[in-house]
């Protein structure tokens, strides 16, 4: 029962452990931060290309 409850409330990624890091020369970034940056870049590009809905009374 307890395992079912904890499974339902578990994070999609196992957070019980040291974080994962990506190294590129002198640059080191955690995978979690890299995912956030990737999502932000994706949102930025979508904001540029997606059509904006036409509101009522817009000139």
């Amino acid at each position, binding site marked *: 029962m307890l395992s079912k409850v904890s499974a339902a409330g578990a994070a999609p990624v196992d957070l019980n452990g040291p974080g994962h890091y990506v190294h590129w020369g002198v640059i080191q970034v955690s995978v979690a931060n890299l995912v956030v940056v990737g999502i*932000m870049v994706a949102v930025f590009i979508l*904001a*540029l290309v997606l059509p*904006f809905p036409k509101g009522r009374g*817009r000139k």
Partner: protein
Amino acid sequence: MSEHVIAPPPTPEPSPVAGATDGELTGGWTGAVRRGAVRALPPDKLLPDTQPKYVASWIYVFGVLTLAAFLVVLGSGAVLALKGPAWWHGSAVGHYFNSLHLWSVELFMAFMVIHLWGKFFMAAWRGRRALTWITGAVSFLGSVGTAFTGYLVQQNFDSQWISTQAKDGLNSVGIGAYFNVTDFGQMLMWHIVLLPAVVGLIVVLHILMVRRRGVVPPIALRSAPAEPAERETATEEEAAR
């Protein structure tokens, strides 16, 4: 066929200072401030009900998203300040507000950075908007400092790690004695009083500058016929030359 009625010119109101006419500068410094404020931000500019056509793009939404997230940050932070750490660490509703504060900050920073990217690539300092750009950049830096002091006052191992790492960096530039990241009380005051006041004030200035100069048009529109707000700014720019 519509009939045009020409209204008579409005009758000038009598001046509150005896003998003074309308054109004279009256009312001391309060009058001067009032006249300057109304000249810089007339009501239709301060609270406009229309925006230029080019504003109908998702990239223009991120400024107001940042502002909305900022209001949630301030509101949730105010509740945390009123209820205290025993509440936010020890009760379910306290945990909720603690998380609300964290996630609204995450969204605030993300929206602000996307807003910054958009404004950088459209060179948003054009058309006498340098002060708008500068107040935005300063509020971004202030927000980084506010978020940093927020991480320092989490009262967990994370905050201990961050503060002991940061103290070496701050000591190396000589400000560790005045901005002591291992002093919990000092960091809490920076986080909940000084920095929010400064960031809030600069954000207000930033929004007033956006109202004064108008929303920056995309670069491609510079050669196209200008929108009324842009035309007015361009006229001011020409006059300043």
